[in-house]
């Protein structure tokens, strides 16, 4: 479409296309992609709120054991004196809330709910982060290899992804956790349960990121900088890990952030079903498992761990959504 010709004489002088106002003090600074994403992210108040909660939660999880040591808290300490022996429910209103036990005590054993939530936080996050790192490492490597090499390699890896996506994930996880319950790889107790959870959750989840990375690599490998690198004599592994992967950091971060909440829910589900973290070790899913027996008479015990899971998962989801919008404006 051609622009109509202006014929009003005086205004028809040559004009600069854009006028920069107030830049006479110095040069305009160039901004990297990261800076642009950060400035976009900052404007998204909900995502920032999610990010702040995530940071607080991670701090809480990291400092969980030190906090317990500092205040002399013990997640497995029994407080039978706070339990009504006739009903085995906590004495007092709201599940036995008091200054000493701000979130109440659990029925039957009288263990402090707040301390158990604190103890459960690190278990939850260690499993979720571990599983995410495991599955996204496999996914990123296989995805970039499939996308870059194409051909038969791509066919094999893509079929593998389809196959993994067809597995009944939860049931496989239940089955593996159940068969390895007795002991495996010389591990026992909590380290065993945590490693088994990381393995079962992480090992089957990789095709989700794998597909995304493969798709992005298909587009990236045609770009000039890859050709240039190849022209300078770079070969397969160098191009994969030094040229392609750094350009895929954005989507990998986004989908890691979005996979963590899924994995938190997964861990909680398995512990809820009794194949994850085993009592007496505190875990959020395990607490809900025990709360089910009491929810009609002591709903407090169910609501606290339920809300803990909800807030954590929601915060990670908000952060992930915000990061995705900031790093990939097309997805808005």
């Amino acid at each position: 479409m051609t622009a109509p010709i202006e014929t009003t004489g005086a205004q028809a002088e040559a004009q600069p296309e854009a006028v920069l106002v107030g830049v006479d003090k110095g040069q305009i600074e160039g901004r990297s992609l990261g800076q642009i994403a950060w400035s976009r992210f900052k404007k998204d108040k909900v995502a920032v709120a999610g990010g702040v909660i995530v940071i607080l939660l991670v701090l809480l999880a990291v400092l969980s054991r030190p906090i317990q040591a500092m205040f002399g808290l013990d997640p497995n300490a029994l407080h039978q004196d706070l339990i009504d022996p006739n009903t085995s429910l906590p004495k007092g209103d709201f599940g036995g809330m008091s200054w000493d036990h701000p979130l109440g005590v659990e029925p039957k054993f009288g263990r402090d709910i707040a301390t158990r939530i604190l103890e459960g936080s690190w278990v939850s996050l260690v499993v979720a982060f571990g599983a995410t790192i495991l599955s996204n490492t496999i996914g990123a490597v296989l995805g970039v290899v499939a996308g870059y090499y194409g051909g038969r390699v791509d066919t094999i890896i893509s079929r593998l992804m389809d196959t993994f996506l067809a597995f009944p994930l939860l049931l496989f996880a239940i089955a593996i956790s159940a068969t390895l319950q007795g002991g495996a790889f010389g591990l026992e107790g909590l380290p065993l349960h945590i490693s088994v959870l990381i393995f079962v959750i992480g090992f089957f989840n990789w095709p989700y990121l794998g597909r995304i990375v493969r798709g992005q690599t298909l587009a990236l490998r045609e770009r000039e900088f890859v050709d240039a690198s190849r022209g300078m004599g770079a070969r397969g592994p160098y191009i994969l890990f030094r040229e392609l992967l750094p350009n895929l950091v954005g989507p990998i971060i986004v989908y890691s952030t979005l996979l963590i909440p899924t994995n938190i829910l997964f861990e909680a589900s398995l512990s809820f079903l009794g194949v994850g973290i085993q009592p007496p070790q505190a875990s959020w899913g395990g607490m809900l498992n025990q709360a089910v027996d009491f929810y009609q008479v002591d709903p407090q015990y169910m609501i606290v761990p339920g809300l803990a899971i909800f807030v954590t998962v929601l915060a990670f989801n908000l952060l992930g959504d915000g990061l995705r919008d900031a790093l990939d404006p097309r997805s808005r």
Partner: protein
Amino acid sequence: MISYILRRTFAAVILLLVVTAVTFAIFFLLPRMAGQTADQLAQQYIGKSPTKADIAAVKQNLGLDEPLYAQYWHFIKGIVAGATYDLGPTTAHCDAPCFGYSFKNHVAVWPQLTSRLPVTISLAAGAAVMWLVSGVVIGVISALKPRSFFDRAFMGVALAGVSLPMFFTGNLALLLFTYQWPIFGRTYVPFTENPAQWANTLFPAWCSLALLYSAIYARLTRSGMLETMNEDFIRTARAKGLRERRVVARHGLRAALTPIITVFGMDLGLLLGGAVITETVFSLPGIGQYAVQGITDNDLPPILGVTLLAAFFVVIANLLVDLLYAAADPRVRLS
């Protein structure tokens, strides 16, 4: 078309073989790799406090001492042709398809699965209708007016929906609507006995399941619709003078629905193989609950049977989706 169907069916059969191999590996190979002895593994197939003779019998019946390929052969042969187990004084028949035999409860797993299937189908079908309708409608409304009040409100609720654990919302629903205000029934009633009571008991479970899934589907539909409504063919449809409603329904939604159908097939297949958590929370005697019972009883064969069945359902659902695709979209057949 026929060659396409044959190819897809062949691929599905291969996938089934792979899935049975992986299931076999999880139940028989992985524990051994992790350092368990054949005795320890056999013990897991009997449950708590077995005698020495029990362990030896199970070990012999499952061939746990034999080489791996022989064990796998027993496993596949059982599924196809059935199996007979020698239990000291008596023998137990496990008719084909033998999805395992619970040495602890002295029952074959397959009849248990089929008797529980109607419950799981009731749960999955009811919830699927609810989430598909609500999810797609909400997704379309949100996509047509992006960044509007409704869009933000719906997507906020959807985000909360995916962040809520099923075993929390489910129990909350039970607490509120069966104890605090007893509107809904607590024990499952088969459809053939009393359809009204059937729906009444299942309703809270449907809603809890639908809340989770409709949130996912609303987000999927929204992003799909946002993408398709920017396509050239939408502009063409508008330029032809079609009404906006027709453009959205016939041109936009139709294109946006295809990926949703794929996901739907997978989800439905998975759910039919046992909605483990939902059935546990709402005490529905379905397939998933059978697996959980296996966990609590320390009885592996039920878990093995449910896992196999779920894998079968997923593979079959995948095949059906592929065939539906081909029927709807001629381009798929040719590629």
